[in-house]
């Protein structure tokens, strides 16, 4: 990708929602559709794993597939690679039918499987060399190719150590390198960042962004890690029980699945009950604030719901002014926009979607 990738230096933050939307607008123009499915269905004996899936993924975009375990993500991916026959419907990957011409599809699609593994008794480089041979890459360019991909994922230093000495995160990186060996047009990554440390994750996500912008690749990634999907994907598809229950950019999804209410998150350093009661009465007096939820434990942020139609910035200033006037110990204040997790939970909770376990509430944030 970039000129000095050593350990993929974090030059820019992984894309935020605002520019994600821009990118999608730009890429959805004339870019060719590299992955296309129509009515793709996979049924097992008593279970519909994938139910009439329609998907279009264009060159130059990162598409995030989101869903619980068993929602059908991996089955979809396997059908796209021709590793499983669809029961019904059709798929086109780089313009080819994966179940008819799997070889050409597999030649041009890099795939990182879920829980990828390598031959432990071989070194990282030897493992990649085997992949290169299986892709019939010519002998005289193999080594250069391997150096390139190892460099991209930041494994150059450990490339000649046996894989059974690698950590899970390094194996994951090697898996990404392995998918890149064939110089693919489409990259399909199943849980690419599991077991990679947070710093490594942002490097990997930067790498993916770079591949998309420089090589014009299409990337399909599936993940449980909502924050990452949110930060790197142009578009997101929410999968539940084999069906795509929502698809689009973050903004589109927020619009469709958002609750339609705006929240202010206010951090207050209050401990005594009487202080809390005072803060509550003071804040409820602010115009535009309709309800107040205080932190369950000391230190937890409070949430103020803003009246429908009111300008959030005005309300925020009013809250600030009130807090200052009443000498409340304010630690932070910010507007809460629906995070992918909120959207996701709401999407799967809708009729037709399946229930998801409630996780810790971590609202996404924008600078106040």
């Amino acid at each position, binding site marked *: 990708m970039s000129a000095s990738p050593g350990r993929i230096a974090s030059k820019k933050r992984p894309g935020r929602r605002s520019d994600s939307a821009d990118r999608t607008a730009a890429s959805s123009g004339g870019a060719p559709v590299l992955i296309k499915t129509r009515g793709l269905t996979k049924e097992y004996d008593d279970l519909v794993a994938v139910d009439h899936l329609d998907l279009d993924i264009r060159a130059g975009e990162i598409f995030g597939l989101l869903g619980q375990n068993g929602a059908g993500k991996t089955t979809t991916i396997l059908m796209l690679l021709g590793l499983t026959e669809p029961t019904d419907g059709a798929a086109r990957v780089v313009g080819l039918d994966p179940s008819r011409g799997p070889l050409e599809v597999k030649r041009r699609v890099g795939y990182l499987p879920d829980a990828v593994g390598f031959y432990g008794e071989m070194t990282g480089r030897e493992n990649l060399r*085997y992949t290169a041979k299986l892709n019939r890459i010519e002998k005289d360019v193999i080594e250069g190719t391997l150096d390139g991909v190892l460099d991209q994922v930041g494994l150059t230093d450990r490339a000649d150590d046996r894989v059974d000495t690698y950590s899970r995160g390094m194996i994951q990186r090697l898996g990404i390198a392995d998918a890149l060996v064939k110089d693919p047009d489409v990259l399909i990554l199943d849980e690419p960042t599991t077991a990679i440390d947070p710093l490594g994750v942002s490097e990997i996500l930067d790498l993916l962004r770079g591949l998309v912008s420089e090589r014009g690749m299409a990337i399909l990634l599936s993940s449980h890690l909502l924050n990452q999907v949110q930060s790197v994907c142009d578009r997101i598809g929410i999968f539940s029980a084999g069906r795509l229950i929502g698809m689009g950019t973050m903004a589109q999804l927020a619009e469709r699945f958002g609750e339609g209410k705006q929240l202010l998150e206010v951090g207050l350093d209050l401990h005594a009950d009487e202080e809390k009661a005072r803060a509550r009465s003071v804040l409820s007096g602010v115009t535009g604030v309709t309800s107040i939820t205080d932190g369950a434990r000391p230190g937890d942020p409070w949430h103020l719901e803003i009246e429908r139609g009111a300008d959030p910035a005005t309300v925020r200033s009013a809250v600030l002014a009130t807090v200052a006037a009443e000498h409340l110990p304010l630690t932070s204040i910010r507007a809460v926009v629906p995070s992918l997790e909120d959207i996701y939970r709401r999407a799967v909770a809708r009729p037709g979607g399946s229930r998801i376990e409630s996780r810790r509430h971590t609202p996404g944030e924008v600078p106040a």
Partner: protein
Amino acid sequence: MTSTTTAVDPGAVRKEPAADQATPTTRKRGIPRAGWTIISAKEFSDHVLSSRFLVLAIIMAIAAAVPLYFISGQIREAPSGATDFPALFIALFWLTPSVNDQIQLPSVVGFLAMVGPLLGLAFSFDAINGERANGTLPRLLSQPIHRDDVINGKFGAGLAVIAMVLVVMIGGVTAFALIRLGIVPEANELLRVFLWILLTLIYIALWLAFGLLLSVGIRRAATSALVGFGTWLLLTFFGGLIVSLINGVVAPLTTGSGEDVLKNIGLRETLQRLLPDTLYREASLTLLNPQVTTVSTPATLGQYAQAQQRIPSLFSLDQSFILIWPQVVALVGLTVACFALAYVLFMRQEVRA
């Protein structure tokens, strides 16, 4: 769907987003090489460098060296008797050496019949489930190869390793015979040995295919190893016992008449031929010893008397071969059946668990 295919023309895909990627691939692709040969080459080097190869090489060396050591003693002690012994070189493989009056050791053929399956199983019991457990199978299958390249490549690599071990082993025996015993093999004998190596390869390939079948059908490598070696133990060491048991029930020696005895022996032979190692032993002994002119005991007393009166003669190679043809066919058939079953099962299996 055809109309959408044209819309997503591969050429257009390449040109659009990035101008520098106009050429289909920046990396050169070599001349297409069959996928299974690449997998075979990798598996072969894996096998040869593995510790299990070392262990098996030692076992095979013992299987050849121990009988040879005792036979050579016997041959040296009786030089005059040895000179008019027909086909002395190949006799090295089937003579059962006696350590003393009581103890008889198995011949090289006998040893191979016993440890050969071990060789086959060891190189295949974890072929597929090992890849699965390792997480390498989906990655391997997502490379531009056919799915059967994986199982074919693994089988081919196993065969190659076994053939190599056998050739080295037989070569060692030949060298020993030439240098230490001064026995020079004749062309005819070499041909018989060559065919016998092929026969041994088929016999071991049967167990290789059986191991492969287990590795496809059983998820855990440890379980498939246990089942494989258990089957080997059962057939090789307890097979005879089980045959005697069935024989005793079905055709008991109650009256002790000649007919009764022959019936008992006939049934025993039939039952034993259900065991692959019997097939291999019979075929090997006939192939290696031209004096063997029959593999079955006569079925009636009349035939028995006839056989007694027959003048001892030597069989030519084609006569020997015709005699063991059923055994060879049975071994090949079993091997093909095991491999075909493994193949079909693997092709129909889901990539994921």
